[in-house]
């Protein structure tokens, strides 16, 4: 922890985006080789009760944080304490508990605002998750600004949650979907993306980090190019917000979404960030309580932001838990978390490369700590099943990104993903179990 101050001073992922210059380097090359000493991993692991579990008699090696991250005691306790001491429905309560609950909920929004460096708290809308947030933008931005023949530009590596809402809108409004291609390394070449921006492109919506391959997209440049073409931009930060600092003002993105549960927080809570003028300009997503100013049988006027987009009783305790999760990662330092995970990725890449029948899928220059692979002659389901028998939890399948799998010509991959609590010993457990797979299925 001695080097902490120095580590925090390291250039963050998104530094330089407003300097008009180079592609953001994440993580920097000097960080990549060094996975020790960014923080005390064992102390961090002690915060996560579930990491002490054993599976089939083996210590749990949880390598599926890209699907959902485990929760630290601080998050579990924040939710428990909120329910035990401060819980009531928010807003309009005349009693002290309701006021306390409302304050806790508002405070969580404040934490998110600081976390993303948004201009205003009311630019932070709580949703059920990233999927819900994208659906909100598709429905409301789509309603206000997208007409027949208008184009929405996505990329081939998107998660289904950033494809299907736009396809639904296409059916409803006759918009045109364009897909920026992915190269063999799993990258979205910037020039190809730019080429697909046209006079009718109203919105570009894309992931910051691929959930399958870990590819880090050059979002600063993509946002700038989209804006030059007159398009608005939505960033799906579900996979990146856990690894790197996000600054929505520096990025200048119009919308950004993420889920709480991948950020070591509760399920059922997510965030939509939107620029104030855009959130003001688009209609409500759902109607109900809390999102109105006044209702008569003839006419309803809507509440100001952010309540306009939060119909009904929101996930209050989950928002409180998300606030605690953000406090947790912020205290640890996203720069240091990113550096630790980059070290694990480098170590895992090296370790798995020695397993002959194994091929790593996705070799982008800039990658987050997601490692997809296949093994010649062994089906991903069988690999994942065998790994489970050794306590190693990974995911196998199409990872909700079938268009990307089709592009790669693979029905499925095995995916190991690393979070702030993973260790090189767990990478070793993965590698050793994969060596067993090789013996069991191939020899």
């Amino acid at each position, binding site marked *: 922890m001695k080097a902490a101050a120095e580590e925090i001073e390291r250039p963050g992922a998104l530094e330089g985006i407003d300097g008009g210059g180079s592609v953001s380097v994440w993580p920097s090359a000097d960080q990549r080789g060094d996975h020790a000493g960014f923080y005390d991993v064992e102390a961090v692991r002690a915060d996560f009760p579930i990491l002490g579990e054993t599976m*089939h008699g083996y210590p749990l090696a949880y390598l599926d944080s890209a699907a959902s991250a485990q929760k630290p005691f601080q998050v579990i306790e924040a939710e428990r304490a909120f329910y035990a001491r401060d819980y009531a429905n928010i807003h309009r309560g005349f009693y002290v508990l309701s006021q306390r609950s409302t304050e806790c909920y508002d405070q969580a929004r404040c934490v998110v605002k600081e976390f993303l460096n948004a201009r205003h708290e009311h630019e932070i809308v709580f949703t059920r998750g990233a999927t819900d947030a994208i659906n909100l933008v598709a429905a409301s931005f789509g309603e206000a600004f997208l007409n027949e023949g208008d184009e929405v530009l996505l990329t081939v590596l998107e998660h289904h949650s950033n494809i299907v809402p736009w396809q639904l809108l296409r059916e409803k409004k006759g918009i045109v979907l364009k897909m920026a291609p992915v190269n063999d390394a799993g990258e979205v070449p910037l020039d190809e993306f730019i080429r697909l921006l046209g006079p009718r492109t109203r919105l570009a919506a894309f992931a910051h980090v691929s959930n399958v391959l870990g590819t880090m997209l050059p979002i600063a440049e993509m946002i700038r190019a989209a804006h030059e073409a007159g398009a608005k931009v939505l960033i799906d930060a579900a996979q990146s917000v856990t690894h790197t600092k996000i600054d929505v003002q520096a990025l200048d993105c119009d919308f950004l979404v993420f889920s709480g549960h991948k950020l070591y927080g509760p399920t059922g809570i997510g965030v939509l960030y939107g620029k104030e003028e855009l959130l003001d300009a688009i209609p409500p997503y759902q109607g109900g309580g809390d999102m109105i100013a006044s209702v008569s049988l003839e006419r309803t006027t809507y509440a100001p932001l952010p309540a306009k987009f939060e119909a009904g009783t929101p996930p209050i305790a989950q928002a409180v838990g998300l606030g605690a999760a953000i406090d947790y990662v912020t205290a640890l330092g996203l720069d240091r978390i990113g550096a630790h995970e980059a070290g694990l990725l480098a170590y895992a890449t090296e370790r798995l490369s020695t397993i002959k029948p194994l091929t790593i899928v996705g070799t982008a220059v800039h990658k987050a700590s997601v490692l997809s692979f296949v093994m010649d002659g*062994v089906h991903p389901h069988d690999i994942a*099943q065998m790994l*489970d028998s050794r306590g190693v939890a990974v995911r196998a399948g199409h990872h909700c990104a079938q268009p990307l799998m089709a592009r790669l010509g693979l029905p499925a991959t095995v995916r190991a993903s690393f979070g702030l609590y993973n260790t090189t010993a767990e990478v070793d457990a993965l590698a050793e179990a994969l060596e067993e797979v090789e013996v069991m299925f191939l020899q």
Partner: protein
Amino acid sequence: MSDSVEIYPKAVLDHGRHPRNRRAIADCSHFAQSDNPSCGDDVAVSLRIDQGNVIRDAAFDGRSCVLATASASLMTELLVGKTPAQAKMLFQRFHALATGDAEKFKDSMEVETARMAVLSGVHAYPVRMRCATLAWKTMLAALENERSQQ
């Protein structure tokens, strides 16, 4: 130590690595194909049923995990000599084994049930049920899909 490995006993690995009857039947009388979109697996099942309504040949083809492959391989071995009605009974027994409900059919087709029991470990892993039953469900579809004589 680990209950997970029981899903891959030796016999399953053997069928998985050296599947029996993985081929097409040129003069098959019944055929069906299906896939498992969650993993991209696909399997085709072809049967040759003779005039006396007996399955004389059964084969499968396609791309799948060890579990699905072993299940398909074993199935094709067990189908030969059965009538379509018996094939459906076999599936009921397999399904019972794979869902941990084997007691249900204790009294008949004992030999076949014993052979299929190598796959019963799947009952502990509901997510793998689709793998284990893919070929079987395709076989049921094939029974309903008689190819017109050319």
